[in-house]
C-alpha cells in the first residue's frame, strides 16, 4: 500500500509540472490524470469519476495573467490515495478539493519567492548564457520536489484526519457528503453552458 501511495505522489508531482512549468500539453488535466491514478490503485472507474468531477469543478478557473487556479492534479490524486487507504470517495474528494485550494496558495508562495533567487540567476546568465539549461533544469527539479513534498504531507494529514474523524461521523453526515458529491457534475455541466456564451462578436 505504501508503495502505491508513493508511486501516486511521484506520478502526481510529475504531472503537476505539466500544468505550468513544462510542456502544458494538458496531460495533467484531471480527465487524463484521474484514470492514470485509478490504474495505479486498481480502480479505474473511481479514477475516471474523480477526474471528471475535478475537471468539471475547476473548469471555470483559468490561469489568466497571474491567477494560480486550484490544482486539478492534487484534487484527483488526494481522493484516490485516500480511497486506496479505505476512505470513501465522497469524503476523499472533499479533502482533495481543500488540498487543491491550499496547493494554489502554496504555489503562489513559491512563485513569489522564486523571484528572489532569480535576481541572482539573471546576473549569472548575463555572465554565462549557457547556464540557462542548468537553471531551467534546477527550477523544474525544485518544483517537482516541492510538489512531491506537498502531496505526500497533504495525503498523510488528510488520511490521519479522516481516520480520526470517522468514528464520530454519523450516517447522516455520510449522506450529506454524498449528496454534495453527487451535485458536482451538475454544477460543472451548468457552468459549461455559460462558458460557451457567445460574446466574442
Amino acid at each position, binding site marked *: 500500500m505504501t508503495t502505491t501511495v508513493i508511486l501516486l505522489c511521484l506520478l502526481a508531482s510529475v504531472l503537476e509540472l505539466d500544468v505550468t512549468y513544462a510542456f502544458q500539453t494538458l496531460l495533467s488535466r484531471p480527465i487524463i490524470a484521474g484514470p492514470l491514478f485509478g490504474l495505479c490503485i486498481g480502480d479505474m472507474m473511481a479514477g475516471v469519476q474523480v477526474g471528471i468531477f475535478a475537471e468539471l469543478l475547476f473548469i471555470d478557473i483559468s490561469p489568466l495573467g*497571474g491567477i494560480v487556479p486550484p490544482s486539478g492534479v492534487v484534487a484527483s490524486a488526494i481522493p484516490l490515495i485516500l480511497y486506496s487507504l479505505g476512505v470513501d470517495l465522497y469524503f476523499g474528494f472533499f479533502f482533495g*478539493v481543500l488540498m487543491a485550494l491550499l496547493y494554489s496558495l502554496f504555489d503562489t508562495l513559491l512563485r513569489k519567492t522564486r523571484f528572489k533567487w532569480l535576481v541572482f540567476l539573471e546576473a549569472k546568465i548575463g555572465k554565462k548564457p549557457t547556464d540557462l539549461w542548468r537553471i531551467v533544469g534546477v527550477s523544474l527539479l525544485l518544483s517537482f520536489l516541492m510538489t512531491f513534498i506537498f502531496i505526500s504531507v497533504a495525503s498523510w494529514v488528510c488520511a490521519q484526519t479522516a481516520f480520526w474523524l470517522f468514528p464520530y461521523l454519523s450516517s447522516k453526515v455520510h449522506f450529506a457528503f454524498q449528496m*454534495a458529491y453527487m451535485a458536482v457534475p451538475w454544477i460543472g455541466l451548468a457552468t459549461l453552458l455559460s462558458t460557451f456564451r457567445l460574446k466574442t462578436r
Partner: protein
Amino acid sequence: MSFWIRLNMFFRSFFLQAGWNFVKYQNLGFAFVMVPFLRKLYMYDPEMLPTVLSRYLDTFNTHPVMASFCFGAMAKQEESVAKAQSVTEYKEQVAEWSGARRGLSITAASIGDRLFWGTLKPLTLLMALFIWMLLGINFFETPQLQPISCFEAFSAGIMAFLTYNAIALFVRWEGIKIGYESDESSCFGLTRFDWNRTIYKAKRLGIFFSVGLILFGVYHHFGKIQVGLDFFARALLVLFFIIISFVTRRLKIPNVYLYLSAVVIFTTVCLF
C-alpha cells in the same frame, strides 16, 4: 531562420514557464527559448550576447501556446537591432523591439486565453464526456462504481488530449514561422487567422454539445429510476444546482465554493 533553429526553439518553447515568477513572469523561459537564435545571430560578436540577453530577461508574459508568434516576431526584430549601424539607430531599433514585444505579448495572450483556455479546453472536455457516455459509463452514479476496462477509462481522455494538442502543436510550430515572416502591418502574423470567427464557431458547437450532454445526462441518470419520491427529490436537487450554478457564475463565484457550501449546508441540514 533555419529549420534546426526553429526546431530547437519549438522544443525549448515547452519550458517557457519553467521559471514563472510574479515579478517578471516568463522572462527566464523567454530568454531560454531565444538563446539558439541569438547565438547564431551574434555568432561573430559573442561579447554582445549577455547585453542582448538582459533585454530578454525583462518582463514577459503571454499565453504559452500563442507565445510562438512572439518568438518568431522577436527574432525578426532582433535581426534589425543587430544590423543597426549607429548608436542612435540601435536605440531606435531596441525601442521598437521593446514596443513590439509588449504589444504582441498582450494581443497573443488575449487570443490564447479565449481560444485555448476559454474554448478548446472545455470543448475537448465535452468531447471526452460524450465519448464516456457513448461507451456506457455512468459517472453520475455515486456510491456503487462499475468496473471498467483500460480502453473505456483512457479512450476519452486520450481523444481530448490528441485533439487539443493537434491544434496547440500546430500553432506552436507555425507561429514561430509566421511571426518571423510577417511584419507590423499584419500584427506579426496574428491577423492571418480569423481567431474571432474560430472562437465563435467553436463556442456555438460547445453550446450545442453542452445542452446535448445535460439532456443525455438527465436520461442516463434518471432513466433507470422509477418515478416516485426518490426520483422527484433527485430531480429537484439537480434542477436546484443547475439554477444556482447559473447564479453563482453571474456573480463570478467559482464552482468550488458552491461545492464547499453544499457540503456545509447539507451537513448542517442533516445534523439538525
